[in-house]
């Protein structure tokens, strides 16, 4: 039987992990390779690296980070952030990433998904969606540019469009839940998970182990992603998995 995945997410800027990773016992808390190895040893099923570099140099550095992580790790990882062209995808995948995630660039030019899936296979192309509930729409609206710009897309419509174009997975972030630690948006996750045929990764709002259980049982997610609760050691991947196992959820 397939297991539910727990995925820590690391923000990388100019080759360094940023956003307050508070780990004792690491020589260098900002080193992506060291952190990746740490999460691997804790039982993380996959990792996501989000490149938040603003400069061209920062992006080039990301390619080196990817090849170092790939050399050290025997679990899969996804790289997102600033992937705008087929060439960007090539560089990251050739450096050893297993998947690339596209967000704003895919909304602006959906053919990017089609091209990427055609060239590398659907399994390589993750579509990341930032969604926020919209009273007027009576549903969730898709946002781009790091959540700053609303689009005309309703979330399940965009998810279906992305999958029809070859997205192999949806990384779904609830902007309402992000950073709240009040739990994943299970209604949103459930709506998207039932609308598409590919796996859905729930993101935004993780605060404790119960929230992961809810994401799988109520939100029908296939995987769940979190950042700060793992980085700040409020809980650990191993602890979350122990809880899920006790509750009868299959985990690795």
């Amino acid at each position, binding site marked *: *039987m397939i297991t539910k*995945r727990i995925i820590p997410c690391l923000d990388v800027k100019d080759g360094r992990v940023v956003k307050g990773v508070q780990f004792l016992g690491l020589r260098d808390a900002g080193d992506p390779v060291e952190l990746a190895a740490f999460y691997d040893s804790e039982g993380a099923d996959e990792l996501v690296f989000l490149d938040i570099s603003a400069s061209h140099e920062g992006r080039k550095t990301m390619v080196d980070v990817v090849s170092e992580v*790939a050399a050290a790790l025997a*679990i*899969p990882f996804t790289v997102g952030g600033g992937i705008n062209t087929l060439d960007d995808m090539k560089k990251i995948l050739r450096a050893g990433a*297993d998947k690339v995630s596209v967000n704003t660039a895919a909304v602006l030019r959906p053919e990017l998904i089609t091209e990427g899936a055609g060239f590398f296979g659907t399994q*390589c192309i993750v579509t990341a969606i930032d969604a926020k509930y919209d009273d007027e729409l009576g549903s969730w609206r898709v946002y781009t540019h790091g959540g700053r710009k609303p689009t005309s897309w309703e979330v399940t419509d965009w998810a279906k469009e992305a999958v029809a174009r070859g997205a192999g997975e949806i990384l779904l972030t609830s902007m309402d839940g992000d950073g709240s630690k009040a739990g994943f948006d299970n209604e949103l996750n459930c709506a998207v998970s039932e609308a598409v045929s590919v796996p859905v990764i729930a993101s935004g709002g993780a605060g404790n182990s119960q929230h992961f259980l809810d994401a799988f049982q109520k939100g029908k997610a*296939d995987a769940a992603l979190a950042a700060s609760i793992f980085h700040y050691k409020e809980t650990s991947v191993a602890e979350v998995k122990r809880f899920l196992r006790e509750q009868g959820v299959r985990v*690795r």
Partner: protein
Amino acid sequence: MIGVIDYGMGNLYSVSKALERLDVPYFLSARRDELMKADGLLLPGVGSFKDAMLILDETGLADFIREWAEQGKPLLGICLGMQLLYENSEENGYSEGLRLLKGSVKKIPYQTEQGEALKVPHMGWNSLNFVNSSFLLDESADPYAYFVHSYFVDETERDAVFASADYGVSVPAVVGKKNVFGTQFHPEKSSSLGMRILKNYTNYVTGKVNS
């Protein structure tokens, strides 16, 4: 020495790095005169079956791989590389494979026999059922492997399946017959179980174990 077949359809970096971590000598090549010198071959693969077979046919590598296997020399296919070892695939219309193993590659159904919905691709960590013993597998090890694929091998010989995974259908996961082997998952991404398979294969190639 392991020869990794570089025909433009694989994530060669991660396989190469895994071999380096295991301290196994290897080289990448698309040339038969170079690949001829290897003790065992690795056929990686990501992408579509049809595209991969077109390249292998055009470059003459398909014939080379068939001759290699018929001479009893070791070959391990990974992911799409494993599917290529079979007779044919329905991915993007019908195409013929290398025909080294019996079976057809089919799309994973979107629901179980009981009508329960299934996500395709089959993506994530799944546990293996050990069907037939093989030097490739250590059954006492962690049984999880990382899968990511939308097609699976159907109608194969049960004797040629060492381990399978349940995903609505029974997915052949580690396969082999005589000197030809395959894994549906990526061993280089499958933590301890995967690394052990690669190590066991390379030991077999260098004559440290017998099949």
